[in-house]
């Protein structure tokens, strides 16, 4: 409680200081610039998705926006705010039914008058928000949600996604597993019974069976979302003894699973591949990462983050303030905001004045910009959908005080290996045997 209180104090102080530091009307601003750029930031602030996803996301967004306003971010983002104009963030809770989210989006745009909306973690929300963003002609940048349908089934003008879709996670981990365990014979899956779990397992299974058709599936388990109690599932997995167990569990469910599977040594019996293992690094008492699991972080984030000027800066700042190295969610939110800044400034450079939304959108399409952890390229969905590399490693050790893991046998897959080429739907691409893929 006390720590939270003082943290809040620090946050408030930093906000005030950053406000004071920002020059009122800098001469660097282009003509026609508004007093501020308002960004709506939407993430889960309550409910089960808050601790591991929503709150870290908000932390990342807040840290970056404050640093941008203060002009403290390293090159190429060292100009204050966006085009010299300070950013003001409006935070909204993503929890609640989908009609509520659509209402809140409209309120953000029409009442809070935000210029840009950034965020969204739930795929259902992304699918519901995209057409509304189009209708309101509001630049909207999705940060974490993974469903490939957003840009594979529709074309959007005002909507972008600055992270790769979820195919890279399950496909990448399937390729990784085949590389480290070439004699693989049996697989099993334990995934939550909802769209993310279903899609993840389908991608994993399909990829494995494409690349090694003689593999046998021995168990497909579907615990309900947020059930938290997996002893029956774990017993079945122990009895089935598969070579590899795939799981896309995340958040509290993943932690409960790890907590219950460790004492019965499931992670020693089978190679367990977790696509969202970085969730285990969020601070909190008693939490740990088991040895010997395949560790995924939905891209090159967390312990897999490449060394760049920006990643060193962002990771260092984030750790200093929140006590752990950022997992994928804060990086994803930061990337969305950096993408917005890059697009705006590219449009300003072209027009030499404050750009219209359409001009920003044009500048954003097919943009390649320096993200918080490596370069982001908007290559799919007519230049609206990012492609990213992905990497995995096996956990050798875990340091609970620093909340860091050491990985061995790290393999990184380049963009061309795990992302489908433009114009090809992901699932068709997998079924056709990955035409055009460049893989190790």
């Amino acid at each position, binding site marked *: 409680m006390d720590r939270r209180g003082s943290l809040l104090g620090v946050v408030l102080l930093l906000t005030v200081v950053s406000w004071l530091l920002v020059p009122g009307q800098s001469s660097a601003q282009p003509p026609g610039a508004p007093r501020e750029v308002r960004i709506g930031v939407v993430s889960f*602030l*309550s409910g089960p998705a808050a601790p591991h996803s929503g709150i870290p996301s908000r932390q990342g967004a807040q840290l970056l926006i404050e640093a941008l306003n203060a002009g403290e971010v390293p090159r190429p983002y060292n100009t204050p705010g966006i085009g010299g104009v300070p950013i003001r963030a409006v*935070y*909204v*809770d993503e929890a*609640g*039914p*989908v*009609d*509520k989210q*659509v*209402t*809140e989006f*409209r*309120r953000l*745009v*029409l*009442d*809070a008058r935000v210029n840009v909306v950034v965020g969204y973690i739930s*795929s*259902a929300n992304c*699918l*519901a928000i995209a*057409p*509304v963003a189009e*209708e309101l002609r509001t630049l909207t940048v999705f940060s974490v949600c993974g*469903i490939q*349908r957003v840009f594979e089934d*529709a074309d959007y003008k005002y909507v972008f996604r600055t992270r790769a879709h979820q195919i890279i996670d399950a496909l990448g981990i399937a390729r990784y597993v085949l590389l480290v365990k070439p004699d693989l014979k049996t697989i099993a899956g334990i995934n939550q*019974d*909802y*769209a*993310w779990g*279903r899609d993840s397992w389908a991608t994993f299974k399909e990829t494995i069976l494409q690349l090694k058709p003689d593999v046998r599936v021995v168990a497909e388990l579907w615990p309900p979302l947020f059930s938290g109690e997996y002893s029956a599932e774990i017993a079945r997995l122990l009895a089935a003894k598969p070579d590899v167990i795939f799981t896309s569990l995340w958040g509290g469910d993943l932690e409960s699973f790890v907590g219950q599977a460790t004492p019965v040594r499931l992670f020693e019996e089978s190679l367990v591949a977790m696509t969202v293992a970085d969730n285990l690094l969020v601070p909190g008492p008693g939490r740990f990462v088991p040895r010997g699991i395949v560790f995924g972080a939905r891209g090159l984030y967390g312990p897999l983050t490449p060394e760049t000027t920006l990643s060193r800066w962002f990771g260092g700042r984030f750790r200093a303030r929140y006590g752990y190295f950022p997992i994928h969610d804060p990086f994803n939110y930061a990337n969305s905001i950096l993408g917005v800044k890059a697009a705006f400034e590219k449009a300003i450079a072209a027009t030499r004045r404050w750009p219209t939304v359409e001009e920003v959108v044009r500048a954003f399409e097919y943009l390649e910009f320096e993200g918080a952890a490596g370069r982001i390229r908007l290559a799919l969905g007519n230049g609206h959908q990012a492609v990213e590399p992905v990497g995995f490693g096996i956990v050798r050790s875990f340091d609970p005080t620093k909340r860091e893991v050491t990985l061995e046998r790290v393999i990184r897959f380049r963009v061309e290996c795990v992302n489908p080429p433009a114009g090809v739907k992901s699932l068709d691409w997998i079924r056709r045997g990955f035409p055009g893929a460049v893989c190790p």
Partner: protein
Amino acid sequence: MQWAIVLLLAIVAPLLPGWTVFLLSVALAKALVVLGIGLLMRGGLVSFGHGMYYAAGAYGVAFAMKLMGIREALVLAVLGLVAGGLLASVLGMLLARYRGLFFAMLNLALSMMVYGALLKFYWVTGGTDGMAVRQATFGGFVPPAGLLRVAYFYLSLGVVAIVVSMAHRLVRSPMGYLLRALRDNEVRVNYMGGWVEQTIYRVYVLSGGLAGLGGSLVVLNVGHAVPDFAYWSQSGEFVFVALFGGYGHVLGPLSGSILFEFVRSYAYKVSPYTWQLLLGAMLALVILFLPEGLWSLVERRMARRDRWGWSWRPSS
């Protein structure tokens, strides 16, 4: 009375800020579901599963658009009504025999199975990611962007006006009085020759149809249908709003629904981190101090004439 309110809403709406118009359309559409639930509650039956009819309407629209290519808003709304009504007419045959909490619980169980089905048949329904519902047409036209939301609003308002006036008439009809008598004492109604099961069945189907109609209008406004529409917490919310507004008068659900949506949006806005606390506190206050709903405030101020037709008060 209700026409004055409808007229007022119709005149004021285009002048309101854009997101308010949207909020009102959704609130009006949900008011239909609440109205149906309120009718059942007049008969002493509380359903914690009407989310399934709401979902039936919403998915009915989504499938009609996807498979049959129907895009006319009014046709889709009627389809939602039919979808909800059909499902209710099948399940109602079982449910009309139940009373009290058993009725509530069985509705809940069935709605959770509908939820499970929507989630399980993900290759048809898209699972929890849901189904998109495209832009509807109005008499063959797609309204220009600036007028689109207003068009949806008038659609919701028009439907609500018709339904409310019909419900008002129903409440004052012999069937309406029979319903109220059922709540007080079913056995006596039976002895007096009242057609108990038939009345309950009819009202149940009607309320299912209204929930379907509401679901179809909501999904036309929102543009996305998800299995959560059938989840128990959604059904619970409808019951809540019915009590919040007060189901003693047909305008209770309407005002309750509108107020609830505004209050919730306000709570999201002023305290994004603790909106549940705000919402919960407000709801607790209403239950403790206005147990007959917000509309009872209005009623207390109104003339007492024709009280019999206006309202019902618990006898115990």
